[in-house]
């Protein structure tokens, strides 16, 4: 099917290519007046409040076959230990900056200043992290490599991921999340565990990345 595709090889000139593509673009678009502006009459920031954002978030999460747990602010450490025990996950790593009261002795902190070695990460059977925020309507968790979230590899390679979400980190919808996030940080948006529908359009959970996603929602008032 390929008509060509052989490497251009000799005489390729990076500046010439750039100039030529830009010349073609300018000829094609002509002289356009400044943009007329985009009508943003869809539901934007604050326009989709939820009565019970935590409840909605948990409902949407479980729809994706992630498991949700809830606890009060002073019970996080013991709840995490309980969930991990339930799953029989013992070799746990945590990203740099995770609150010490959430962790247990024997867990290893990984990924401070240097990139973590993927093969070494593969030896852990679970990771516990925080998050930057979460989106109720879509059941999405956003990690932005901030404290307690670590390098992207840390929450990627181990087969099990437990995320702690504070209730005040849950925003109603996608526009609210975009408004709060810093675009220039490395980000991972997670909505349920890994999944594929590539075989006869049957959904199968767990391909690459953590095959099990558990979420602990921490409510202040409980």
């Amino acid at each position, binding site marked *: *099917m390929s008509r060509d*595709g052989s490497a251009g090889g000799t005489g390729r000139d990076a500046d010439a290519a750039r100039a030529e*593509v*830009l010349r073609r673009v300018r000829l094609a678009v002509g002289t356009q007046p400044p943009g007329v502006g985009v009508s943003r009459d*869809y539901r934007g920031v604050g326009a989709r409040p939820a009565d019970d954002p935590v409840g909605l978030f948990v409902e949407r999460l479980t729809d994706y076959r992630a498991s949700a747990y809830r606890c009060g602010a002073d019970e996080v450490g013991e709840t995490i230990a309980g969930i991990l025990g339930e799953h029989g996950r013992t070799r746990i790593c945590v990203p740099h900056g995770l609150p010490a009261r959430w962790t247990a002795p024997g867990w290893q902190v990984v990924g401070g200043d240097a990139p973590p070695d993927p093969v070494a990460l593969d030896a852990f059977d679970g990771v516990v992290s925080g998050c930057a925020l979460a989106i109720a309507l879509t059941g999405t968790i956003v990690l932005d490599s901030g404290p307690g979230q670590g390098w992207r*590899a840390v929450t990627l390679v181990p087969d099990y991921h437990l995320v702690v979400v504070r209730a005040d980190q849950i925003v109603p919808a996608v526009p609210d999340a975009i408004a709060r996030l810093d675009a220039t940080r490395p980000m991972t*948006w997670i*909505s349920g565990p890994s999944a594929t529908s590539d075989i*006869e359009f049957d959904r199968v959970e767990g391909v690459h990345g953590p095959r099990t996603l558990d979420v602990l929602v921490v409510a202040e008032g409980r």
Partner: protein
Amino acid sequence: MTVFLGLPTASPGVGNLHAATPFPTAAAEALRDDQLRRNLSHATRTIRGRRLQTVAELDDWEQLRAAGAAIKDDVLDHLDRYLLQLEQAVTARGGTVHWARDAAEANAIVVDLVRQAGATEVVKVKSMVTAEIGLNEALARGGIGAVETDLAELIVQLGRDHPSHILVPAIHRNRREIRDIFRREMVGVDPALGDEPAELVEAARAHLRQRFLTARVAVSGANFAIAETGTLAVVESEGNGRMCLTLPRTLITVMGIEKVLPSWRDLEVFLQLLPRSSTAERMNPYTSMWTGAVEGQEFHLVLLDNGRTATLADPAGRAALRCIRCSACLNVCPVYERTGGHAYGSVYPGPIGAVLTPQLTGVADHPHLPFASTLCGACFDACPVAIDIPRMLVHLRAQAVAAGARQRRLPTSEAAAMSVLGWLMSSPGRWSAALRALWLGRVLGRRTGWIRRLPPPMSAWTRSRDAPRPPRRPFRARGRRR
């Protein structure tokens, strides 16, 4: 050969856009494949239903759609400005930007970068654009192995096959065929591997795991690139994308120049439109975003033209460049559902392929594709960025007829048929006479009720379609009798 470009400003695209077999012939072959039709019918019907449900959850869907279309039109109107802004932002954050006029140039850039990184193998995130430019073949010629890591792309690669759908490239294969491919092609696979999807997925995971952990170079496409900030985004489900984008120390992203978005805020529109249109989910499982060189990686961005500026030069056709590759139009198309993706002869199948491919290559290279449609309008209704595909098909049909006429100095069969039809329909008397004459057509197709072949010039129609036998009495004649 005459290439119709609208304006003589840009070169047509090359690579895996060109059909070895014209659509009518390929479609006629595909129509004889019952298995293919069953697979497609199941998949497209399933996703059509789910998509309607998830879209209905958003009461501002039409507003989002209009905003999506307007943002993309703004991008196309000021593409030079946004590309320069993107280049500046990516460079400022430690990335390197490369420009490629066509597939060959983009491939050469990537091959050079992989060699510089000292690698002989790359892991790949599923990407339409690298399929378009035939990157895997170019890497192979350069002595570099490319490992597709998306499950469907892996099935296609191991089966030495071509993708047939934008979202689910191996949709033409069923589980038994996939098991057979895995048993035959995967080194060290369990010879007793079964055909349950979960088992097959597990085999793919085991097959790719070590490669992810040790790969030095990854190649991806991009769903979005933000001019304002230099942020790149890749949207996926399996986690293979996260693996490729995160673990290797060198990341090379190839992106069509139309993929840029002006501002970070624009993602609030597209991250609502894309997952619901594509996989019918509220959000896809994983989205990765990065700006420049992050977390110790070296980052290269290759900006590709390959026929896009030629498409941009046609005001009636350029809206095809709004496409965000969601594949919603494929899943609602009665023609795609019956012929499958291979018949389109390009990496871009279905309704969007029927408008995008002939524009990227020049209509003369694909004169049949604009006719691969019923003009029913379902694709337009489903499109999250409101591309009026039917209108564009009609526009391209006119171009194809004109290009054909110029090339042969004779009217094409389509043009001849249409002008005869026009002449007949312009007079009630002539039209009635023609309908009466059609009765004669009843001698054709007496056995099956379907006419397999009509005489020229209508033979162009029946070459790839069967025509119903004309009615015993024309409708108009029935009216007269009453």
